[in-house]
């Protein structure tokens, strides 16, 4: 593998590069959302795109999520490939009907006649002291719905490659960015690349315990891996990259090797990707496990505002390390 020209860019730049490259490649692709054009994006993800593509393809919408999400779905049924930015996934809840009742069901309900090639993207997850209404992790809530694909990148490189795949995908894709990660810098090649859905990445190789993690939690799990190495515990961290499709094979392969599994998922525990992974591992690796699958989630409460409470609310390094030790009978 030769990578000629690596550069370091921010997560937000990686997302923008993916969108811009795909818009240059395909006229059917356009971006709409609140403040995406003249304001250059509430989080500057779409900075400069209005200048390049003009107001017909980079479209400021009013604060009207239900309306513009539905409008974009209608446009996708007609054959366009819209990218819809939710300033935050927390605001997508007022658009629940179009994004859950229309987009993922159109293909099925029409007997295969009308698909919905659309990307919904925006910030997901707590961590900015925004209080309960603005701190949603929608993974658990939305991954319950068949017909959607859900992407949750942990770094700039993956964000770009997965976004390009999302835009070319023929099904509705929910792309979960993290406001906490937007300024993260990482190596991204100049050359074009795509990352397929449903293929986890081994972010850290290890032999004692598999940590299955999603999105921003991968980075915290990696820190834990370094810390636990000092205690003689070798963690393998799997960056799942996508929740639907879920790369079951990579999880199973890793857990069969390590015999222990901890899942780190920032959504609530009840009916979540974490519980789905636990069910999968218990079924497929029953005879390989030395302990039950341990799960680390956000606390089962509304997200608090106070900084210390919010940090305790989220899966953090301490809780993840405790879970790994407990899983290995080392606590």
């Amino acid at each position, binding site marked *: *593998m030769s990578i000629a020209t690596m550069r370091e860019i921010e997560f937000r730049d990686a997302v923008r590069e993916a969108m811009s490259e795909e818009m240059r490649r395909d006229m059917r692709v356009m971006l709409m959302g609140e403040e995406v054009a003249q304001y250059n994006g509430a989080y500057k993800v779409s900075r400069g795109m209005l200048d390049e593509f003009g107001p017909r393809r980079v479209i400021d919408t009013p604060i*009207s999520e239900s309306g513009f999400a539905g409008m974009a779905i*209608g446009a996708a049924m007609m054959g366009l490939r819209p990218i819809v930015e939710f300033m935050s996934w927390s605001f997508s809840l007022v658009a629940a009907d179009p994004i859950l009742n229309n987009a993922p069901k159109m293909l099925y309900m029409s007997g295969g006649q009308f698909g919905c090639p659309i990307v919904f993207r925006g910030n997901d997850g707590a961590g900015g002291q925004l209080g309960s209404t603005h701190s949603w992790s929608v993974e658990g809530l939305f991954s319950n719905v*068949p017909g959607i694909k859900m992407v949750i990148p942990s770094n700039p490189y993956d964000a770009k490659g997965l976004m390009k795949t999302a835009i070319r995908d023929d099904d509705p894709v929910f792309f979960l960015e993290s406001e906490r990660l937007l300024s993260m810098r990482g190596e991204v090649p100049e050359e074009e690349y795509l990352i397929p859905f449903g*293929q*986890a990445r081994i972010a850290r190789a290890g032999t004692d315990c598999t940590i299955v993690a999603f999105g921003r939690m991968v980075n915290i799990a990696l820190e834990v891996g370094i810390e636990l190495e000092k205690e003689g515990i070798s963690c393998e961290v799997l960056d799942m990259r996508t929740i639907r499709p879920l790369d*079951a*094979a990579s999880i199973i392969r890793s857990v069969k090797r390590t015999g222990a599994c901890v899942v780190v998922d920032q959504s609530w525990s009840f009916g979540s990707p974490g519980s789905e992974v636990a069910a999968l591992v218990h079924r497929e690796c029953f005879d390989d496990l030395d302990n039950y699958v341990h799960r680390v989630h956000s606390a089962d409460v509304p997200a608090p505002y106070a900084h210390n409470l919010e940090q305790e609310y989220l899966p953090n390094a301490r809780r993840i390390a405790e879970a790994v030790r407990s899983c290995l009978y080392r606590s």
Partner: protein
Amino acid sequence: MPTSASSNADGQVRPKSNRPEVPMATAKNWLREMMLIREFELRCMQAYQDKKIGGFCHVYIGQEAVAVGTIAATEARDPIVTAYRDHGHALARGMDPKHCMAEMYGRIGGCAKGKGGSMHMFDRDNNLFGGHGIVGAQIPLGVGLAFATKYEDEVINADKNGGKSNRVTLAFLGDGALNQGSVHEAMNLAGLFDLPVIIICENNGYSMGTSIVRGTTMGHQISLKSEAYGMEGVEIDGMDVIETYWAMKELVDKVRATSRPIFVDMRCYRFKGHSMSDPRKYRTREEEERYEQGDPIGVLKAHLELRGLTEDDHKEIQREVRATVKASMDWAENSPTPPSSDLYRDVYRERWGPYTGTSEPEMLGGAEIECKFNAIDTTIDRKADLL
């Protein structure tokens, strides 16, 4: 504001009849289409009672002139989207009654292969984008269809056809949907972005069992609501297909030329209940009889009799539509039920091979696009790996 119909004290709409004549053959065809829809719906009611049709079933009896008159004013390339009282629109748009009936029977021969049912009629060939079951949800979709046609015509094909928007979307809703937020959000977007869409409110006076004045402000003149969204509001008599056609033709031509949205208060009346289980206790028999005297099929028949339609002609049409609908029922009856393997079909575009549900190892990734930088060896056959 051009008002092509006026209301009298009892709420009934009296058509103005200063429109040009339509050719006899065209008008006769409209009569046939309306009678076909009527017969189709009567047979649906029977089939529902016989438990051949499941779920919810909303029949269009009384409103036939709306679907036939509005759709006659469009071209085949103009997209249409509607709510759950959708059989009439599907038939008026040209869907074969066999496919419409088989959908209601839940058979593989249905327009959506038995996956949609009565409320979800889809027909790509005829540019019918559904049939939608959630009240009002289809209006943002309709505005999106108009967004897409305009984008295709003016952005993607900027160097063809003068780069001018040239399709018109019809998005239907009932008066019961008027108070859904999504409808107002969509009207705002349509006005804001100059989208070529006609939002047609089939105002039959009842939101299920709630009369319009009990649930809607300005219920006596809902077209005024459009003003707030910068769009023209028009009232049309939806009980007279000729009036409906001419009024809609003007609007369709105007939207095709200007790419500006229009809102229509289409005055009509649903002769039957909201759905099959509705005892209609919320209105009087006298009111129903008053409207039944203005039955749109009777109105057109009377008009055509003045132009020479004979009783034999009428009987011949009646015989033909009965045979057509009967044949559609026989066809639906004989159409197989969907195979159980279809349960997992059309959830995704299936780029990963057959989908069988989550947490099943079959839902794996990566078959199509080669991953250049993946840490995992993609050359391993993952399914074989699991055996």
